[in-house]
């Protein structure tokens, strides 16, 4: 469904963030994009919805090359891709409901959105999504009154109300504590399964990625260095690709914690 062909991004400073990336994501597949800071993860998903302009290469969504679209067609294409951000990126002075409904901006006219008169099905869907993530009672609170985990759940609702084919998820758990991180990852992967959504999840936490996704793609210096099931990512493999680090320790620690929580539930 999504196909990247020789996707390259060179910044004005001369830094080559992506070096001819080839990647194919079938319908409904959730994949994690791992790699250290500066590996090009953020650039890659931003090149897909063109928040960052790719330098060359193709981004094919159902056969349409997004990299070549004009601004009107690009807006239409962006409606098909929901994005979830690092640090949530909610508009802080808007209410939770306004933030969720802002996911429908691509579908309603200016005056409707300006007067906050959204079509009834959109409003109903917003309430349904908020209820699904357990935040229905917060609908009219201002976004900056919420905790980190709650904000990210609103961010998820905002992406899902677009009814997208694909979710682009940029470090959803950065700045969240370990337990909340797992809850958010579980929620995202569950929702993707329920709706048959494909997703690319940027995440630097390898252990967390391995717990939730069926496919892991490893990026280093703008190149793909690993692509396969999470079981193939042994500590030896990781060390070989990313250098020496105590991979075992992080993985084990998280596993134990998780079992505790699972047992408690």
């Amino acid at each position, binding site marked *: 469904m999504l196909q990247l062909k020789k996707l390259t991004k060179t910044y004005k400073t001369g830094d080559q963030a992506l070096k001819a990336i080839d990647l194919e994501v079938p319908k409904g597949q959730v994949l994690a994009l791992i790699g250290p800071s500066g590996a090009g993860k953020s650039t890659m998903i931003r090149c897909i919805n063109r928040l960052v302009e790719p330098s060359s290469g193709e981004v094919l969504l159902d056969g349409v090359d997004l990299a070549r679209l004009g601004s009107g067609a690009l807006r239409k294409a962006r409606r098909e891709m929901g994005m979830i951000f*690092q640090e949530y990126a909610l508009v802080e002075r808007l209410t939770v409901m306004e933030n969720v409904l*802002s996911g429908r901006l691509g579908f309603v006219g200016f005056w409707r959105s300006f007067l906050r008169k959204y079509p009834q099905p959109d409003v109903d869907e917003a309430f349904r999504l908020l209820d699904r993530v357990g935040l229905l009672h917060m609908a009219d609170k201002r976004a900056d009154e919420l905790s980190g985990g709650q904000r990210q759940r609103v961010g998820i609702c905002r992406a899902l109300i677009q009814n997208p084919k694909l979710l682009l998820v940029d470090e959803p758990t950065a700045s969240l504590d370990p337990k909340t991180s797992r809850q958010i990852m579980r929620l995202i992967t569950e929702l993707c399964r329920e709706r048959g959504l494909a997703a690319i999840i940027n995440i630097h936490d390898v252990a967390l990625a391995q717990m939730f996704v069926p496919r892991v793609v490893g990026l280093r210096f703008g190149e793909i260095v690993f692509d396969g099931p999470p079981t193939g990512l042994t500590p030896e493999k990781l060390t070989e690709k990313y250098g020496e680090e105590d991979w075992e320790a992080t993985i084990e620690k998280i596993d134990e914690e998780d079992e505790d929580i699972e047992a408690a539930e």
Partner: protein
Amino acid sequence: MSEIRLEDKLGGAWRKPHFIKRPLLRWGLMAGFAAYLVAAFMTIEVDWGRVYEGLDRGAAFVLAFTSPDFVSRASDIWEGLFESIVMTVAASVVGILISIPIGLGAARNIAPLPVYVVCRGIVAVSRALQEIIVAILLVAIFGFGPLAGFLTLSFATIGFLSNLLAEDIEAMDRVQAEAIKASGARWTQWINYGVQPQVMPRLVGLSMYRIDINFRESAILGLVGAGGIGATLNTAFDRYEYDTAAAILILIIGIVMALEYLSGIIRARVQ
């Protein structure tokens, strides 16, 4: 370069390094500044005899505040005050409405370069021309009266507000706006959802402040014939009617204080 060793540092005093490292340059600059200051003060000529005579007039002026006369020129005062308020409100509303699009255009992070250059140009022209100079020009064109004052204040509001609004837009959180763009919003929706909520409190605060400034300016503009309470004040001074002048000044101070209080409340509410 010799290696820095802990043993050499221990027991020694520590002082913050000087901003200007070379002592000669540092002391030279300080001495030069002091010399300039002394020389500047020496050039101010004071005619103490004239000051002594003037003290009486000054005292009469200050004493007038103990017996302000609101009554004998009441109709002039109210007329001038009403004119000032009309000028202030009209100029502020028009100025703010024009400032918003120019402010958007003058923010480098959301405007394309040609738009940016034009809007920055408008802002620069408006800020370079002092109100009094603009007022004199406009009085020459439109004749005496509040129309010239209204246009002057609108013009000045544009320079002030667009500039500060643009600065606030440039300092906004880029990611919040990016998230709105990623949903496929059109440009107007992006401004309404991604930018406006971030800059609204400051826009409201600045607008209130500008209304305050416009009212005070309207008292000055009368001196060059651009209407408002300033004209009444000027006439009172010309006739040596210090008690009437005192009454006018007290009214201006009262209104400015009320505006200040009001803007405090409003700013606290929109945070």
